[in-house]
């Protein structure tokens, strides 16, 4: 029999998270701080709208780009929150989670051999999706000393004449880093000068804790026509299982993304789309409350980690803390494995998000305060046991 498999697919490394997941799954009564999704249930009024749409028998396909009502609400939302003007009719499409949108954007933009700049540590799908779309991933290793933001110099250092796309994953999973308006302006200037495009993954845009609203790079002068903006409902409205996201881009790009979506997916789930309309119309207060709750827990986790002697830069976005364990003389994976064996607490090694995540852990604070306390007590015991004695005194 011939080999049924594609060389391209075989070349793709399986997700580092998957391996760790298998170990954790076998551990009975482990407590986890390893989840990348909200602990809240979807607010009831949103779920209720989904149920209602089922009762009404709205069980058919929607148009490929999504329900008109939903696209209109997305356009209004982006105007209200980011001062962006997208035409709902030609510049917005609804996707199966933000992850589909990432994939579509790469397919639509890349010719074989063109380079995609991927800042890491970052979400696990950018690199394999680039490879599948015949692009060449070029990793930019972000640094803790820059609070894991992308600096202009780092960006410039990786640009070649093959560079086509920059992925901009902020607010960032796993580091919690955010880019300020000033940071983005520097990046935007280079993008325009060097004639590059951006896929801006803003799925955590509602979860920032700087006191200032999220800034989308698409709203900066000259950037609208160069940006594919990706967002969704999973994080802000605690709707991960509904699988609903969206992409916004100039028509030139969006038409091609829509073409792929039309053949591969048809349309995003109809029930989820109806629920999402309600989320955008009536969900602002829910988001505000969840954000405040995350922010409180964020402060708690950062304080506890610092008090136990782990260096931890202040994360201002998403719901992750990314402490350094470099003082303990073990690798991220060793730390995560031993912590699991000895204290039955699961955290994700930073290396799951790129090689430069070595020496760090991703700790999610999408858990109740009591769960966080319990888990952090155990981490503290573990760190005390393994922290080398201070020299001298």
């Amino acid at each position: 029999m011939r080999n049924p498999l594609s060389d391209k697919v075989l070349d793709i490394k399986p997700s580092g998270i998957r391996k760790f997941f298998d170990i954790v799954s076998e551990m009975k009564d482990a407590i986890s701080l390893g989840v990348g999704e909200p602990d809240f249930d979807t607010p009831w009024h949103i779920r209720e709208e989904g149920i209602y749409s089922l009762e009404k028998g709205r069980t058919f396909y929607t148009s490929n780009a999504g329900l008109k009502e939903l696209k209109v609400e997305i356009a209004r939302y982006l105007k209200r929150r980011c001062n962006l003007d997208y035409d709902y009719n030609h510049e917005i499409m609804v996707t199966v989670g933000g992850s589909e949108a990432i994939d579509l954007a790469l397919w639509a933009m890349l010719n074989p051999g063109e380079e995609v700049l991927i800042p890491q540590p970052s979400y696990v799908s950018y690199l394999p999706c680039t490879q599948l779309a015949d692009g060449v991933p070029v990793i930019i290793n972000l640094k803790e000393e820059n609070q894991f933001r992308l600096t202009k110099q780092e960006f410039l250092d990786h640009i070649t004449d093959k560079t086509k796309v920059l992925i901009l994953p902020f607010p960032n999973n796993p580091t919690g880093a955010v880019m300020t308006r000033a940071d983005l302006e520097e990046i935007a200037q280079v993008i325009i000068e060097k004639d590059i495009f951006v896929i801006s993954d803003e799925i955590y845009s509602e979860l920032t804790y700087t006191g200032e609203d999220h800034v989308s790079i698409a709203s900066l002068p000259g950037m609208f026509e160069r940006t594919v903006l990706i967002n969704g409902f999973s994080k802000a409205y605690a709707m991960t299982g509904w699988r609903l996201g969206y992409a916004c881009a100039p028509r030139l790009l969006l038409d091609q993304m829509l073409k792929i979506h039309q053949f591969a997916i048809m349309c995003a789930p109809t029930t989820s789309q109806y629920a999402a309309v309600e989320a955008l119309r009536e969900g602002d207060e829910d988001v505000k409350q969840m954000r405040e709750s995350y922010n409180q827990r964020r402060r708690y986790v950062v304080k506890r980690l610092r008090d136990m002697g782990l260096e931890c830069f202040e994360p201002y976005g998403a719901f992750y803390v990314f402490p350094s364990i470099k003082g303990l003389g073990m690798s991220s994976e060793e730390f995560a494995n031993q912590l699991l064996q000895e204290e039955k607490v699961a955290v994700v090694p930073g290396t799951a998000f790129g090689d430069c995540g070595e020496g760090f852990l991703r700790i999610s604070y999408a858990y109740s305060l009591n769960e966080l306390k319990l888990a952090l007590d155990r981490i503290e015991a573990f760190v005390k046991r393994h922290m080398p004695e201070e020299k001298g005194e």
Partner: protein
Amino acid sequence: MREKILNVLEKNGRISVHDLAILLGEDEIEVANCIGDMERENVICGYHTLINWDATTEEKVTALIEVKVTPQRGMGFDKIAERIYKFSEVHAVYLMSGAFDFTVIIEGKTMRGVAQFVSDKLAPMEEVQSTATHFVLKKYKDHGTILVAESSDERMLITP
């Protein structure tokens, strides 16, 4: 800061001032002072425990009584309300808009006990015109907390 403190305390009265200060990113002493002020000003009126008595062996009945009254000259409703709320059986008293004047919530050991309170104490009051007593059969949700639900974390242990 007050509002933020209250929002946390309303859901978690047992949290320590130390932890509360961390959650809010505020100074511990300032938080303690602020709580002290609010206790003195009766903004914080107590720290109670939300108990689902149905889950215990203790027998309890709760009744909601609609009360119509004749307000007194110069005193309005406040004086009558006071005469009602001073009874220890009375759990809550609210002045209402609409078809009746007060909602009175009574907690007693037995239905007979509650009935006796209504017929002996409440109904005979001079200002009370009429009462309508409704017994609570089952409490599903109280003080914003769902009493009947079991919650479990159904998320996978590790996700990207």
